[in-house]
């Protein structure tokens, strides 16, 4: 019986590896406007048969996409690339690294954890060449280098993380047809957005859908709101100081930004279901209110990934569209953009891992994903006409045209704050607790880990 089982397992495993070895490329090399020269150049690195393991947070459709990109690396260099995803990436990478069975390359969903791993000596530096490359080739290059540079156990700072795949967060999603039915215009300034909000209420509608629910991470959508508000009420330098806690959470400027979010979220008339529903609505269900009949709400502020949670059959660009979450006209702070991104880091050094990082520097790695879905890149060397649709291209333009780009602050704060007390604090705030009290609690938790 057991022998039969093994035989069965072996047969299944064999057929599986045979299937992946056949490696289908989504776009045939040589066809279309892709940068095939960069693909051909990859063939100079031959690491035939070497196994490169990649571990990341992407699952389901995202996993298919990243595998389709890695297939080009495998095809060009002959490497045997294996991607595995996990929904508990943050915990598992730590376990694997601690126990010494880390993958070659890990894809971190946020810099905070990568910085932590670098400090404990689990990451290998990418080298000065890569740092120079990012500085020269990414829009706002220096900020990407800074975000990927951490101190090692000896305190020496190096580039450890290579950013690949970026999300834009400063977006408001809406239904163009509902706006047309009601005769609303897309607001160009924060003042307009606020008056539109009041206008919708006066017309008997509900302007916003806001949902903070996300299982164990409940509260994170509100941190994005506060960060966006911070960038719209204060200069970016103040934002940076806030993220590193040079100015405390209890600073009036931070409390003001929290209250700016409260202006939208704590008014029963402004939010679908009333302000009490904000904390209990799941962020994945929240955007569905845009598409109900009659519409539960007209606008939804969320990052560029959210179309994955629109109801089945929703066509982005027709049924749903986005506009830039505008800035105050009278504050003169330019057009700040809040974003997030995933970064590749080497957790188990090998020639194959190095070759994979080199591959990420070639335009083709970005273009293959761009031409499918859900991928934005700050890489200036790609052909933006390859974006799969106008919506993605529009998002990409926001990224390339940002006067100020800032990374999601909660991802940069220490885990206990950025993935802990900030989240829970915002849930309390949405539930009616005063901003000062919430800020004091978050600051206390930050002081506690200093």
């Amino acid at each position: 019986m057991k022998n039969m089982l093994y035989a069965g397992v072996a047969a299944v495993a064999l057929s599986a590896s045979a299937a992946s070895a056949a490696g289908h490329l989504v776009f045939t090399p040589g066809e279309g406007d892709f940068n095939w020269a960069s693909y051909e150049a990859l063939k100079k690195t031959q690491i035939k048969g070497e196994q490169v393991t990649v571990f990341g947070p992407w699952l389901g459709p995202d996993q298919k996409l990243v595998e389709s990109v890695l297939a080009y690396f495998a095809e060009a260099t002959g490497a045997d690339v294996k991607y595995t995803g996990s929904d508990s990436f943050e915990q598992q990478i730590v376990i694997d690294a601690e126990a010494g069975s880390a993958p070659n390359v890990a894809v971190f969903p946020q810099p905070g954890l990568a910085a932590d791993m670098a400090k404990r000596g689990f990451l290998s530096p990418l080298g000065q060449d890569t740092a120079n490359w990012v500085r020269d080739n990414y829009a706002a290059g220096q900020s990407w280098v800074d975000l990927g540079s951490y101190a090692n156990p000896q305190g020496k700072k190096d580039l450890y993380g290579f950013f690949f795949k970026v999300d834009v967060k400063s977006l408001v999603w809406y239904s163009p047809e509902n706006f047309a039915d009601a005769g609303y215009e897309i607001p160009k300034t924060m003042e307009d957005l606020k008056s539109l909000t009041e206008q919708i209420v006066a017309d008997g509608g509900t302007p916003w859908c806001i949902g903070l629910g996300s299982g164990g991470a409940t509260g994170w959508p509100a941190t994005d709101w506060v960060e966006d508000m911070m960038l719209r009420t204060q200069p970016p330098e103040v934002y940076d100081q806030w993220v590193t806690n040079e100015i405390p959470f209890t600073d009036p400027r931070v409390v003001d930004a929290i209250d700016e979010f409260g202006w939208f979220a704590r008014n029963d008339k402004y939010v679908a279901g009333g302000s009490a529903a904000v904390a209990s609505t799941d962020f994945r269900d929240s955007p569905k209110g845009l598409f109900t009949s009659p519409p539960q709400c007209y606008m939804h502020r969320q990052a560029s990934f959210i179309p994955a949670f629109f109801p089945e059959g929703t066509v982005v660009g027709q049924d749903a569209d986005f506009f830039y979450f505008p800035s105050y006209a009278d504050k003169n702070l330019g057009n700040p953009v809040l974003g997030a991104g995933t970064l590749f880091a080497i957790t188990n050094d090998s020639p194959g891992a190095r070759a994979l990082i080199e591959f990420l520097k070639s335009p083709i790695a970005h273009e293959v994903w761009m031409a499918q879905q859900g991928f934005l890149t700050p890489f200036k060397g790609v052909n933006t006409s390859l974006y799969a649709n106008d919506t993605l291209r529009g998002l990409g333009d926001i990224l390339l045209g940002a006067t100020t780009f800032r990374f999601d602050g909660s991802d940069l704060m220490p885990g206990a704050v950025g993935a802990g007390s900030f989240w829970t604090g915002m849930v309390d705030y949405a539930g009616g607790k005063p901003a000062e009290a919430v800020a004091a609690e978050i600051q206390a938790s930050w002081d506690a880990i200093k």
Partner: protein
Amino acid sequence: MENIAGTKSSLSWAVHISVAALVLIWLFPTVGLFVSSFRTADQIATSGWWKAAFPSEQNLTLRTDPPSTQVQKGGQWVIEGNLFGDKRGATISVYGTSSREISTYKAGETGKFRNGATITVQPNGDYVASSDTKWKGGRGPRVFVTAVTPPEFTLRNYQMVLFDPANREGMARAFFNTLTVTIPATVIPILVAAFAAYALAWMDFPGRALLVAAVVGLLVVPLQLALIPLLSLHNDIGIGKGYLGVWLAHTGFGLPLAIYLLRNYMVGLPRDIIENARVDGATEFQIFTKIILPLSFPALASFAIFQFLWTWNDLLVALVFLIDSTGETTVMTKQIVELLGTRGGNWEILATSAFVSIAVPLMVFFAMQKYLVRGLLAGSVK
């Protein structure tokens, strides 16, 4: 005699009702999950599963056929068709032509669009839309209807989980991998525990009571404590991540309860039989294999069921000790988590996968359940 034993208590109806109520309460979530597994994601998001079996009144946003189907009739540009397309069966009561006024017109009445075009919608969804000017755009205008729709169920979720070409291979592999993990991870601890339990129950040696106490103490040690140290140990001695590692881990984590359960059962076996055997010259090993093992079968079976269910449902131990970064050795639980996508929230997949993955444990349970109750009472009743 009738009054002594076996008479029905006058309160037996109360017992029956409470049993029925308890069964219902226990089944309630499972039934919900089962019903949800036949519904689409949008249905799950919009209405509760308990409403699934009844016709429901819904506000729907529908579209007429695209302008490319329009024909010219007597100076008017006309689009005709049925709002529901191929999925008929709903009955429209009222409708509207703007998202702000979704119930302006009764079915059968003629309504107006913002641009002056008109539309007449019948209760069954048939419509005639006509305009003085040519219809433009790629898609037909929206019509908002309030309709009573018949219940609808779908097998698509099961198709997606079991037969979708993208998942099928992974699912089949995960199924065999899971069996490869669970069967040895059930058999090994039982083998070890049966010997240990016999020794602790019937062999006299110094420190036996202390050993039993240590085993009981180990019952309360959370396995999470041991994850990282154990994995580094596996790496140091060269096992790494793999089947051998996960078998050992499951064995270790399962042994305290196994020994405890089996020892308590074996202690309860009649002393006379064992002593008779000793007098007749049986060795300890003969006593164990010829007498103790056959008599302990219910306890062994019930522990086997427990251990099988645990290892089958386990994700944590598999993630730590088995699934390496090549992803070749995935198990069912991991495969299901992957189906949920990066940000989760696919309830329909979750519900369906739950039923797919409990199929094997259910079979094991029904095949061995007659031993379960006897085994559960192991050691508690003499």
